[in-house]
């Protein structure tokens, strides 16, 4: 054990390995943070919830921080409502049981690119007489644009961009740019806008609320995809999934390979022969094709794929390598001694044979992780990702199938790709350094 400790101390001499460890620790912290702040059921709801969950977000919006690097400022998204107090709502009693409401939201518009759309979601309660609402927009140069007025039902949605009457009134091709432009020059008019909704209800006890949503050109920390989903969630949750899959498969594979090799060499005879034959058959089997078949025919669940990957990865060239070393170790003096004092087979295998191999096991375990992290992503990219879990590979697949690179939504591919790259390289770099430490023959050269 002291030996192991000394070996790990040598890691300090490898700056790349330290960077790898730092990156892995950061990923672990992100994973824990993700799992605590967004518990699993909540994550699944946000990822697969449907339009109800995502309606506030714009489509195909890059992250908001690109404004820091861009000379053109893209309008950011926001959503405010009277129900949660984001929008002021004042009520004044009128004639004949009616009530007049005034709902106002003031917002700054200091961007160069117009929002994708603006939407009002009305909700109201009434018995017979439907409430009435009219909307006005006050521009920074004190023009008042009358947008529309209408009767609202229990639920009513008004989209600024879709209103033909408004388009005719503004004499413009598109509503949103026309609203935020100087009518004379046609340029963007920056400043503070005020949206005023005046509503009237005609019954005692009748009430109305509104939510004002602006779909900007940029959104949040990570942007959104084709289904208006906030990419922050899959980016965060991708970390624990990738780490868990990579580590579990790597540990499962290397440990099982080692144990099977040790048992086979110790008992030798037909068991050893069988292991060798299985390995030969496994070399003939097409690894990726089998995994894809299992994904297509049986189940795309990450647990099924994980088990299949481990089973297919045990009997490979590695088991023959371990076997060769165990055959040497088996002949050494201390094994003779153990046999002489009457140690059981199990004791010899697990206490004397396998611990000798730990220096070999550790680097190969760490080095195996990236392959499996990328395997999960590879399967996701060709459409065989876990149907429920949000993962990095699935973001790339969504992006690919929506032509993200072709249409210029680079953030959509680059964010998960960068995280995958960091994860893969962190383990690869660390494993590489460990390999050189634990296998001194490599270090000399």
């Amino acid at each position, binding site marked *: 054990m002291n030996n192991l400790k000394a070996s790990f101390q040598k890691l300090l001499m490898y700056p790349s390995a330290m960077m790898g460890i730092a990156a892995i620790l950061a990923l672990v912290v992100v994973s824990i943070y993700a799992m605590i702040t967004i518990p699993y059921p909540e994550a699944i709801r946000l990822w697969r919830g449907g339009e109800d969950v995502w309606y506030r977000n714009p489509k195909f919006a890059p992250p908001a921080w690109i404004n820091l690097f861009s000379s053109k400022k893209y309008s950011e998204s926001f959503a405010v409502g009277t129900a949660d107090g984001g929008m002021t709502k004042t009520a004044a009693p009128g004639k004949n049981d009616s009530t007049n409401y005034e709902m106002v939201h003031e917002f700054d518009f200091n961007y160069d690119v117009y929002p994708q759309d603006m939407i009002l979601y009305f909700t109201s309660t009434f018995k017979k007489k439907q409430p009435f609402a009219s909307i006005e927009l006050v521009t920074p140069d004190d023009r008042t644009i009358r947008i529309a007025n209408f009767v609202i039902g229990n639920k009513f949605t008004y989209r600024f961009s879709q209103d033909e009457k408004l388009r005719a009134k503004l004499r413009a091709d598109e509503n949103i740019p026309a609203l935020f432009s100087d009518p004379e020059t046609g340029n963007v008019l920056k400043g503070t806008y005020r949206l005023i909704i005046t509503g009237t209800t005609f019954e005692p006890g009748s009430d109305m609320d509104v939510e004002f949503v602006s779909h900007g050109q940029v959104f949040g920390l990570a942007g959104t995809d084709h289904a208006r989903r906030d990419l922050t969630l899959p980016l965060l949750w991708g970390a624990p999934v990738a780490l868990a899959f990579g580590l579990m498969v790597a540990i499962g594979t290397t440990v099982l390979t080692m144990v099977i090799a040790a048992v086979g060499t110790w008992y030798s005879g037909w068991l050893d022969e069988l292991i060798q034959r299985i390995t030969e058959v496994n070399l*003939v089997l097409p690894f990726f094709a089998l995994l894809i078949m299992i994904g*297509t025919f049986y189940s795309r669940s990450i647990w099924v794929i994980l088990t299949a990957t481990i089973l297919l990865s045990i009997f490979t060239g590695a088991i023959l390598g371990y076997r060769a070393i165990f055959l040497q170790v088996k002949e050494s003096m201390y094994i003779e001694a153990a046999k002489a004092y009457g140690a059981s087979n199990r004791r010899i295998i697990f206490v004397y044979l396998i611990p000798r191999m730990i220096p070999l096991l550790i680097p190969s375990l760490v080095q195996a992780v990236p392959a499996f992290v990328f395997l999960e992503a590879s399967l996701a*990219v060709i459409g065989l990702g876990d149907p429920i879990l949000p993962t990095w590979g699935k973001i790339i697949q969504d992006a690919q199938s929506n032509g993200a690179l072709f249409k210029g939504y680079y953030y959509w591919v680059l964010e998960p790709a960068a995280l995958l*790259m960091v994860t*893969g390289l962190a383990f*690869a770099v660390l494993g590489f350094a460990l390999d050189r430490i634990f296998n001194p023959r490599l270090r000399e050269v």
Partner: protein
Amino acid sequence: MSVTAQAPSTSTALTVGKRIANSSFVRMTRYILRRLLTLFTTVVVGVYLTILIANMGGYVDQIIRGQIRDNVTQSVAASPSAQIMDPETRRKLIEERIALEEKRRGLDTPIAVRNFRYLTNALQLDLGRAINLTSDSGSKQVRLILLERLPATLLLMGTSQLFLFFSSVFIALNLARHYGSFWDKLIIALSPSSAVPPWFYGIFLILIFAAGLKILPFGGMVDSPPPSNPFDYAVSVLKHLALPGFSLIISSFFLSVYNYRTFFLIYSSEDYVDMARAKGLQAKDIERRYILRPTLPNIITNFSLLIISLWTGALFTETVFLWPGLGRTLFQAIGLYDTPIIVGSTVIYAYLLATTVFLLNFVYALVDPRVKVGG
């Protein structure tokens, strides 16, 4: 996970037979027969397992039955003569045609029998007909479909893997001569980059060269429509080849060079190499006769495994680049439950691998006087 990226293997699967005082001819024949038998058994078991999984114990049959019922019902419903039939006759006609179609596909025999028939046919390389996929020329013969996609895969995998192999052996020899130099350290530092699979580099390359600079195409193999002039055609193919080829190379290059370099270094620290140096032999001769020669069996093993890996194609890279090769065909076949193509591709690979492993035994004996066939 290409073959060249793995450490040069030293597995010479020479089973040691019992030494009986026989003539070397008998010994060799016995060894060859035994070896052929084990390898053939391996192929049989491997292919049978693939067939079992590709049929999933009958689930694929259900899917295909459902498809047949759907197609027949639709085609009968669409035919004008069926419009005037009474429902009973029409139902009968549909059932008859379903039965006929199931018989044509062989679905009326039990799965175990069918699996066995698949196996014997596949082992005789009678690959049969595909269920859903067709070749571009319209054939449903598995053989023709695979042959049609083979050139595309050979072009992509062949150029990238051969380039990778020769460049890494050549560069590794150079690095082994100057180990500790700047370039040596650079290769060591960059070798973890091979943990990233080729398709992943592919996405970055598409981003830079296709989406950003707009100088190379996003995917495919030729422009659409294909140029009629052979020269333009070749240029177009080369343009499409550049990105997938480069991503296959870049993803294994550094690790491959590193592995060969370490391998050569281990061999160049042998006593007889020191001895040769002490004798004052030229560096070139030492390299050729004292370093390369004993490593030849391993290099040949790697090279031959590389050649047969061409057959499987690069599944993910071909899919990302829409390259019409064998790997993507296999992926499409799986998506369409096209068992004959999956089995056909597997059996050919199994045969190639078994033959190569068998022949390698003799090649070892040829290039390395220390190895004797049959132990």
